[in-house]
């Protein structure tokens, strides 16, 4: 069941639970119950070919778990992921360019790995020509292939990660916080590179970030996550112009804005509750200024009309007086 012919990825009612129970002996002696963490709790979205969908949210909201589910590093506990493309042409860029490159391998070998794995018949001369080309594509020199990862700065290492991801000629890239470990001026270089590559190679990105300004620059569609669920999904311009969910508004209000610093604002209180025991009903209700009785009992869904419903919020839906 493909809803849109141009969808490359369809995620439907995706769930991932983790068992976070105490060890067996503690459960036996101290009668501690089994506990499950619902890291991803019924998530749907589609990504169209050549577009960028961004998942934003605070730590623990489940965005990185989705990245791992989509790439197959975790198996879903429920729901499904349909990828209408070549599974071999799905690659990932990780956050930490210090941990994701093998320190004992030379850069050329790191970049060639996907090629050698996916197309082992490729002649050696062709592999090294391709590696040189990839290094140039990401703004490094072919001579850099002989060096080890520690000889590079964070930004250059992230370029190496991108070159490695490109080696398998991907059509779909999952990017988990690709610039969060980088300084802003280096981040600008990497983001520009990613945008250029997307245009040149018609790449599709699933872009995960906690930084709304980065996401605004990169994404066509933004999904805002809170405690394992997508609370709102809208095209980027709409989300910024007319945020519907109170949590989205909270996020937009709290990010420091260079052009219009809110120096005297009173920040919204409260914290993200533990995903092991989320509040009943809408999990945002304890922090929500618009919450009413129904929010404490019922869970607002985006599910029933999968992709037309943009926000999971009773207040926004019923259009109370406080809702724009």
């Amino acid at each position, binding site marked *: 069941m493909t809803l849109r012919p141009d969808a490359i990825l369809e995620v439907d009612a995706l769930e991932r639970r983790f068992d976070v129970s105490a060890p067996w002996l503690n459960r036996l002696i101290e009668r501690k119950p089994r506990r499950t963490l619902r890291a991803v709790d019924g998530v749907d979205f589609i990504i169209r070919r050549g577009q960028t969908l961004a998942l934003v949210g605070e730590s623990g909201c489940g965005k990185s778990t989705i990245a791992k589910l989509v790439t197959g590093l975790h198996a879903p506990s429920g729901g499904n992921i349909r990828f209408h493309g070549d599974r071999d042409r799905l690659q990932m860029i990780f956050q930490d360019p210090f941990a994701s490159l093998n320190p004992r391998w030379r850069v050329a070998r790191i970049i060639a790995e996907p090629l050698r794995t996916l197309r082992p018949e490729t002649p050696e001369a062709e592999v090294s020509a391709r590696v040189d080309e990839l290094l140039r594509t990401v703004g490094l020199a072919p001579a850099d292939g002989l060096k080890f990862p520690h000889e590079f700065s964070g930004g250059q290492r992230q370029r190496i990660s991108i070159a490695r991801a490109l080696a398998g000629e991907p059509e779909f890239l999952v990017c988990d916080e690709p610039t969060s470990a980088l*300084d*802003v*001026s280096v981040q*600008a270089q990497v983001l520009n590179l990613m*945008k250029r590559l997307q245009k040149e190679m018609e790449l599709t990105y699933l872009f995960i970030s906690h930084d*709304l300004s980065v996401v605004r620059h990169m994404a066509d569609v933004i999904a805002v996550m809170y405690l394992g669920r997508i609370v709102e999904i809208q095209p980027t311009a709409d989300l910024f112009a007319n945020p519907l969910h109170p949590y989205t508004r909270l996020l937009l209000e*709290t990010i420091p*804005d260079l052009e219009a610093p809110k*120096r005297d604002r009173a920040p919204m209180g409260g914290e993200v509750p533990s995903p092991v025991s989320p509040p009943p009903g809408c999990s945002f209700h304890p922090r929500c200024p618009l919450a009413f009785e129904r929010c404490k009992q019922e869970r607002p869904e985006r599910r029933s009309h999968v992709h037309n419903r943009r926000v999971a919020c009773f207040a926004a839906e019923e259009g109370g007086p406080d809702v724009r």
Partner: protein
Amino acid sequence: MSDVVLDVRNLRVEFPTRKGVLVAVDDISLQIRRGEILGVVGESGAGKSMTGMSILGLLEPPGRIAAGSIHLSGDRIDDLDDRAMQAVRGRRIGAIFQDPLTSLNPLFRVGDQLVETIRLHTDLDKRQARDRAKDLMREVGIPAVEERIDSYPHQFSGGMRQRIVIALALCAEPELIVADEPTTALDVSIQAQITALLKRLCRERGTAVMLVTHDMGVIAETADRVAVMYAGRLVEIGKVEDVVRRPQHPYTIGLMGSIPSLRKDVEELQMIPGAMPRLNAIPPGCAFNPRCTQAGPRCRAEVPRIPGGHSTGAACWLAQTGTVEKGEAA
């Protein structure tokens, strides 16, 4: 002069290594007044944390202050021995670091850690210290203080832990707080709470705050003045709104342009070509000259400095003299 709390003059921090002496902080002068928040911003390796650490007297050997002076409310503190510095640190200067978990002892209840610190710096008895600890916890916004005072650090969330660290820093009512990336490990909504708390404390108590961070947005919303560092040097200093809106130094201009905007749509972010030089390869003249599109002969020969005695300005020949040619104009 009376309300200048921190006065750093011509500070130079060196790291002698086998391959030569690295200059991590190069001729930095800055002042912070009572009730003022000075932001110190820069990219990794720019020397901003090193500046904070030298003020706290926590430079890791072989790092050492090679030149310059640091005065705290008129008293010189950079030449104190370890014991004397220990008395200054905590009592007169509070410190807040990035990771609240490393600033707290995981084996002790937070209340006991607060009481210990309070008793170290004041002559309150145990009971009074505990009451003071509760007051401090309330002041930094910890709910249900009576219950939480006997919790261990791991039982708090990251934001609450950072509040405890701030309470610890406040124990002795210091004149100055050095906060090194205090919100970097926190989520945005929590970050806003913590910066608002810092601002309130600074306003109410008149504490001077040095806020070291890489995040220009946090500076724009929190600090009164900002110092921009590059390759161990101060490249620009001034009022926050001036530096953000009308940056003078080409590096600051590039830095501002590279931050994705929340309002404007741009196809491509402005980029500064290249990368900050390593400390062992700082070019002669202006450290930024190889990456600067406007650099001229003078920039490659002479190091520009912030005009002496000024609390605002840019260390840039072009901004100062209108020319990058070598000449008698100097």
